[in-house]
């Protein structure tokens, strides 16, 4: 259990670092896919099967294909061959390192985080899976947010069509 956690955590982190470090945008996108696959494995390890599958389908499938499509459509040159500006790089490193230290310190000092993984009941029958329970919640308690999200998707679709029109005034 712990072994697999560290394998997939390493996969996620290395993919994430690859996104930042790679000079070629296409390589960055593929590193991002690796990172998302590791993250989906971690979700499944946390017994969140629906969310893990959604992560693969929506993020690694749809969103990253969209990114790759746009990268290849725009034909962005392998830019940034010049060095990064020293001031920007230095400031960024200071901000990032201090933020990482802050997060790790706060998390390790809190009492909450030392909780062991509690056992859960195994899935029996059809009405007990996480898909079933999330679906029930979505269409009973959270019926209004679902409607709002539907409207949001409609608005974004219309917005994309309007933005993509040739003559943008």
């Amino acid at each position, binding site marked *: 259990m*712990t072994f697999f*956690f560290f394998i997939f*955590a390493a996969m996620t*982190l290395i993919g*994430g*670092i690859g*996104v*930042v470090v790679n000079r070629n*945008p296409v390589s*960055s*996108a593929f590193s*991002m896919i690796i*990172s*998302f696959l590791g*993250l989906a494995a*971690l979700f499944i390890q*946390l*017994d*969140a099967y629906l969310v893990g599958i*959604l*992560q693969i389908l*929506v*993020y690694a499938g749809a*969103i990253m294909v969209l*990114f790759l499509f*746009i*990268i290849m459509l*725009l034909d*962005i040159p392998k*830019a940034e061959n010049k060095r*990064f500006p020293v001031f*920007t790089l230095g400031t*960024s490193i200071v*901000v*990032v390192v201090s*933020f*990482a230290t802050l*997060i*790790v310190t706060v*998390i390790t000092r809190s009492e909450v*985080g*030392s*909780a*062991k*993984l509690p*056992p*859960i*009941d195994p899935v029996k029958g059809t009405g007990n899976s*996480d898909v079933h*329970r999330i679906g029930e*919640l*979505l269409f009973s308690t959270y019926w209004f947010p679902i409607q709002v*999200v539907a409207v*949001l*998707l409609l608005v*974004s679709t219309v*917005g*994309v069509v309007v*933005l993509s029109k040739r003559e*943008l005034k």
Partner: protein
Amino acid sequence: MDSALTLDHFLILSGLLFVIGLAGVLVRRNLIIIFMCLELMLSAANLTLVAFSRFNVQEGQPNYEGHVLLFFIITVAAAEVAVGLAIIVALFRSRETTDVGKLNTMRN
């Protein structure tokens, strides 16, 4: 090495992933890469949600409200990516660049 997984493992991993995304947003100059790093930060937040939901077991079941929130986050992220990439394409059409250093019209 500690044999049992704790909440700390997942929270620290999520924090590190968030910091990597933040570093990308600060360091990179390509608009599309910055956008991808934003998605990375969203995913880090997702991991935190799932971890807290799994460690908050009530009556033998994880707290599924976290999963519901994550469902909404994924939907909003998909809509955001669609609109954002459309804006980037429109920007590229008028300026022929995606370098944020060259998009400085509002500075003067």
